[in-house]
């Protein structure tokens, strides 16, 4: 046991000095392996960060969200477009056991004029009372639209609109008037900032919207149409069951109406599948560069063995066993790949940082990526160093003592 420790220590020390002696070769080897390892690191880190990002988005939105949308692809048999009926939406919570809450909207577009100035343009959404809770809209002041505000000219302004109104000189937003497409509305509340969730198949854009009662909207809008239902399911349910119940419910109401039902869980699954494709692509790139780097290491080690045949023979004459020589060269290649690995981890994390800057994701160092980078590097050293080390160990000392180098 003591012999192994003593040899390993001496071998590591000598490996370092021999790597230093063949500087150019060492650097070339380092470049190869560090490119491979950095791809692996970037691959794992980006995958990890993207997953984290998706999870965060859904966590903010709630994993029990269900989105129902009219299917775009289907045109109806009578040539007349089928519509989602508001009454069917209002009955969802009573008729579908798995649904606890449901809200909907009629979407329009227009400019907003307040105190004689244009304070923005965006969507004018006619919503039900539940829309705030299902879409998680934070009411900052006043109140949200109520189902009792039937046909009233009340509105709730989004964060950016409220900001613009303050800039126009209005400090008391509630009770002030805002002109939407020729009608004067009384502002009854305003929302806090909402970050848009791009993972959902619905665009809310709450910050730049004005929300009005759905009944008002259907009267003022020339072509009122419910485009989306956002609902919440009971938390413990399987998404397939929820989707089935919702689909069946609407089919029983109107068999001609074709809807797409999305659940958060399903979306997460889809996203994960997409991520898997992405990860697979990165893994392929990483593996290829790792193999190229590894072959480089193998080449370098083979050259090193060939150059040091005399040294190997001398060591054998001095009592080194085949195993000692093999371990010496394995240690050398592992040190080389570990150094390349450390370099690669640095490059990989830097690359991840750059990717995060571009995508706007939160940068984080995933410990798994660092650990797997080191493990991969070590493994590459052992794998690609094995053949050269074996060759060194099998060298005939007599031949080696006669050779130069």
């Amino acid at each position, binding site marked *: 046991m003591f*012999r192994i420790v003593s040899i390993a*220590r001496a071998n590591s020390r*000598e490996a370092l000095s021999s790597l230093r*002696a063949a500087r150019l070769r060492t650097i070339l080897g380092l470049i190869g392996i560090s490119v491979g390892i950095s791809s692996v690191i970037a691959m794992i880190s980006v995958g990890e960060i993207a997953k984290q990002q998706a999870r965060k988005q859904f966590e903010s939105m709630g994993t029990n969200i269900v989105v129902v949308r009219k299917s775009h692809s289907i045109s109806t048999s009578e040539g007349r477009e089928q519509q989602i009926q508001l009454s069917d939406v209002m009955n969802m919570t009573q008729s579908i056991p798995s649904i606890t809450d449901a809200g909907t909207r009629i979407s329009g577009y227009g400019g907003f004029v307040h105190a004689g100035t244009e304070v923005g343009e965006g969507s004018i959404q006619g919503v039900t009372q539940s829309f705030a809770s299902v879409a998680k809209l934070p009411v900052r002041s006043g109140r949200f639209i109520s189902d009792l505000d039937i046909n009233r000219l009340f509105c709730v302004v989004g964060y950016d609109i409220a900001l613009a109104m303050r800039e126009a000189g209005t400090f008391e937003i509630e009770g002030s008037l805002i002109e939407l497409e020729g009608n004067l509305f009384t502002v009854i509340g305003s929302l806090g900032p909402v970050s848009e969730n791009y993972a959902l198949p619905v665009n809310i854009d709450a910050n730049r919207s004005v929300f009005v009662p759905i009944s008002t909207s259907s009267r003022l809008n020339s072509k009122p149409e419910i485009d989306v239902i956002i609902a919440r399911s009971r938390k413990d349910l399987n998404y397939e069951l929820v989707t089935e119940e919702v689909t069946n419910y609407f089919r029983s109401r109107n068999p001609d109406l074709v809807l797409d039902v999305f659940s958060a869980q399903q979306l997460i699954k889809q996203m994960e599948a997409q991520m898997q494709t992405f990860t697979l692509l990165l893994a392929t790139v990483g593996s290829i560069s790792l193999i190229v780097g590894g072959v480089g290491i193998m080449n370098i080690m083979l050259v090193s063995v060939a150059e040091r045949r005399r040294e190997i023979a001398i060591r054998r004459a*001095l*009592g*080194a066993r*085949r195993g000692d020589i093999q371990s010496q060269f394995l240690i050398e290649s592992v040190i080389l790949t570990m150094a390349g690995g450390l370099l690669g981890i640095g490059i990989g994390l830097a690359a991840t940082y750059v990717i995060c800057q571009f995508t706007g994701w939160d940068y984080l160092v995933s410990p798994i990526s660092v650990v797997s980078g080191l493990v991969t590097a070590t493994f590459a050293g052992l794998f690609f160093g094995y053949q050269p080390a074996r060759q060194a160990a099998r060298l005939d000392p007599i031949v080696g003592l006669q050779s130069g180098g």
Partner: protein
Amino acid sequence: MKDSRDKLELVDIYKTYRVGPVTTQVLCGINLEVAAGDLVSIMGASGSGKTTLMNTIGLLDHPTSGAYIFQGQNTAKLKDKQLSTLRGRHVGFVFQSFHLLPLLTALENVALPLVYQGESRSQMKRRALEELEKVSMSDRVNHRPDQLSGGQKQRVAIARALVVQPSLLLADEPTGALDPDTANDVIVLLKKMNAEQGVTILIITHDPAVARQCKRQLQIDNGQLIENHVKAAIDRESFVPDVGADYFAQVTTG
């Protein structure tokens, strides 16, 4: 002192090399017994098989047939691991071109055999320093081989060979790359080690001046050993060094 295990014995050793269809007989029935503590020279022309004989005795080469008894064991039956252990513990090598490792200091070179014995670092350093002291190289311990002269390198090599306190030291042309004065110093040193430590020394040389200083002289010719009993005769002659093996041939036949 050394016990009887330290004698070595070669019985009917043959060594044949086969390169393609060509078979070369290098050693043809070598019989040799070397007593513990002896100082033996083996002379021979190039290609006479003297290096092969040394490699065989040093357990680096396997004979094609015959028995080699070293440390009381028939080495033919031993595996690489056991041979390496035996070689590391009991055999020291000194080569014509020194064969020091260029990246290591004198101290590290001398300590190297101890690495394979599993010695502790402090022990390695202590023993290597001791050995360097014996060869008067204490003032050069941290020098690399390229900072040493030929004679100094060979001293370091001798220290390295002796650091494990082997029973046998094999020197293959130890003075071949040195000028006559330095060569003489090295031989004097080897003789001193033989006398003081009782280590058996086998010197392979083609220099009669070196051979002359050994207790026992052998000659190898066409793979066969001839005992040279005419040391006294040579001593009586007014000896001219560096005339080579032909001189011996004349003396033995004449």
